[in-house]
């Protein structure tokens, strides 16, 4: 069993050092002999054992004696741990490929392939209130949400994508180009929901709603401009006005529309609808009803499509 462990360990270490490559070869020879029902008489196991027990001996004779006595047991334990950890590694690799996180869809925790956890990072939507129960991934849903209240592009597709994001949020801004690329390459029914979780210009949501109501086509261009602009620009009324004018809106018409009571009520209604999704951070993307929280690599979104 020690030879198998050694083969795995030295094979990995052998990628970086010639000395370990030689040891890996010896371990392989030993393992090969075993699997071909021949005795492993290369002395490799004894060498490994000698080195390990020799090191322990420097610390404690009793520890060395104990380790030597149960060496085979330890080897088996390490073998099983190695098998288990290999299984977890493969599963983690698959999860990372499939969901952008080693731990599964929308699951946090350490991931060697994404050590900083950037694929799961979100801007929290917590508003300071103390809910009885914190929402989790399982709570995320679109079932009770009236999507008709939001801006969408119908493409007569079997795939639906709902992007809940915030113009001023870093992670939404990171996810947006990826989602946009997906929309350009694939035929998808698309709904975008702006959910302001940062301190933005107070008129901003009203402008957004007004713009979408007045001219859908210009709205999507304005939407792109908001994501291209810096976060500081989105704080400035003057800069927002310039962007509105740039895409061809009449600024006064937008301002007038934004000031209407009906607009304010509509925006409020949208916020209430968004709360029904139980999202806890942006971006949250729903593809065919399945939620994906955080900015994921392109492949993750693509694999969710039918």
């Amino acid at each position, binding site marked *: 069993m020690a030879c198998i462990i050694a083969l795995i360990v030295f094979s990995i270490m052998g990628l970086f050092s010639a000395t370990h490559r030689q040891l890996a070869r010896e371990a392989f020879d030993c393992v090969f002999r075993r699997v071909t029902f021949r005795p492993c008489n290369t*002395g490799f196991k*004894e*060498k490994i*054992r*000698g*080195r390990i*027990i*020799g*090191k*322990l*001996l*420097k610390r404690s*004779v009793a520890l*060395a*004696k104990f380790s*030597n006595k149960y060496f085979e047991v330890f080897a088996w334990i390490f073998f099983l741990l190695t098998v288990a950890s290999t299984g977890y590694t493969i599963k983690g690799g698959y999860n990372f490929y499939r969901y952008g996180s080693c731990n599964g869809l929308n699951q946090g925790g350490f991931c060697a392939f994404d050590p900083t956890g950037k694929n799961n990072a979100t801007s929290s939507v917590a508003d300071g209130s103390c809910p009885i129960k914190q929402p989790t991934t399982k709570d995320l849903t679109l079932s009770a949400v009236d999507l008709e209240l939001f801006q969408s592009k119908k493409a007569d597709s079997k795939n639906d994508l709902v992007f809940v994001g915030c113009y001023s949020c870093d992670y939404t801004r990171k996810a947006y180009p990826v989602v946009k690329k997906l929309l350009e390459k694939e035929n998808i029914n698309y709904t975008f929901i702006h959910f302001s979780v940062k301190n933005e210009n107070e008129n901003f949501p009203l402008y957004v709603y007004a713009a979408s109501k007045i001219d859908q086509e210009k709205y999507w261009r304005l939407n792109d401009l908001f994501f291209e602009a810096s976060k500081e620009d989105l704080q400035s009324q003057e800069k927002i006005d310039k962007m509105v004018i740039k895409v061809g809106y009449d600024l006064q018409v937008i301002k007038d529309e934004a000031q209407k009571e009906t607009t304010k009520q509509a925006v409020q209604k949208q916020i209430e609808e968004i709360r029904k999704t139980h999202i806890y951070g942006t971006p949250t993307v729903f593809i065919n009803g399945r939620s994906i929280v955080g900015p994921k690599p392109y492949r993750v979104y693509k694999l969710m499509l039918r």
Partner: protein
Amino acid sequence: MNDSSIQSNFPTLNKRKSIEEFVYFDNACTTLRPKSVINAMNKYYEEYSVCGERSLHKLGKMVSDKVHETRSLVARLIDARKEEIVFTRNTTESINFVAYSIDWKKGDVVLTSDKEHNSNLLPWIRLSAKLGTVHAVVKSDSNGSIDLLYLKELLEKYNGKVKLVAVTLSSNLDGITNPVLEIARLGHRYGALILVDAAQGLPHQSVSVKKFDVDFLAFSGHKMLGPSGTGVLYGKKKLLEEFEPFMIGGGTVVKSTYNSYCLENIPERFEAGLQDYAGIIGLGEAVKFIQKVGYKEIARRDLELNKYITDYLCSIERVHIIGANEPEKRGGIISFYVDGADSHMIALMLDEANIMVRSGQLCVHSWFSDKDIQGAIRVSAYFYNTLEEAEYFTKTLSNILKAV
């Protein structure tokens, strides 16, 4: 010379701050080199690294003089004549030289002991396969040295067919020295030539080829403080003169035409190509160092260390010493195996404590196969080892044996 003055000559030993950092007990494999040997070799490379024995310029002459000096030193060391000393790369090459040079006939017999190093076994096995010679093994007696009665029996059995008796002077397996004088007398009586593998013996005891009356004697420089890649074959002048060099070329001829050549005198005719001058010069310094320490002192220190370690090992039931229990019969070598413990494993555990020993079948696989012993640990001391080191070894081994 006391311990510290001896050790101060060895840079490898000088580097350590305490013995726990480095204890070298693998001298039967190769010894450490004294500063004088290293300096002599460096001096050659730094000051006169040119061709010897063919270039007549001043530097060339310096090299030739040094080579001649070493040849003389080696000749004096073994009580031979200068022209009987052939420089080789090592003992193995020297023995193969003899194996290739003797005019073998089918049915000729080679006798060896049962504890020969592969270097003094494999050439004879191959010879039997290629030329139809016969290789027979003389068993050791209860003391571990060659059984003279059995040798006589075989000499009689093959009645004049034994062309060569090739034996080790001291076994690298257990350090036991064979009675070469008696072997040579007996062998010569039956018309056999005598080849002695002195690789392990010469570093520890004085040898007189005249007194022993051996025909060939082979040894290596690296086992007696000299550089690696240096070896010597002594051969009786009249025998060497009969030998056809198995390698010829530069340095081996007086002159040549397009279709003939005239060989140099011995020993140069056997030293083809440019020689390892630095190594040969280093070997000369090694011989000087050994003579300075003296074989008497070497033997005294061998015995002191061997006795200390043997006494400890004999007190442990699981430990079996290979060869005679009496340390005085084993030079600087103590080979042993432990019931229920692998020799490599123990050697590596010793290595973790920075004690370097040899383990396994020690290039004497034939003996281990015959005895069905898996391997052994060989502790081999030399005159620069100390009792303090032996104490550290026994203390460490004691802990190891508690653990395994």
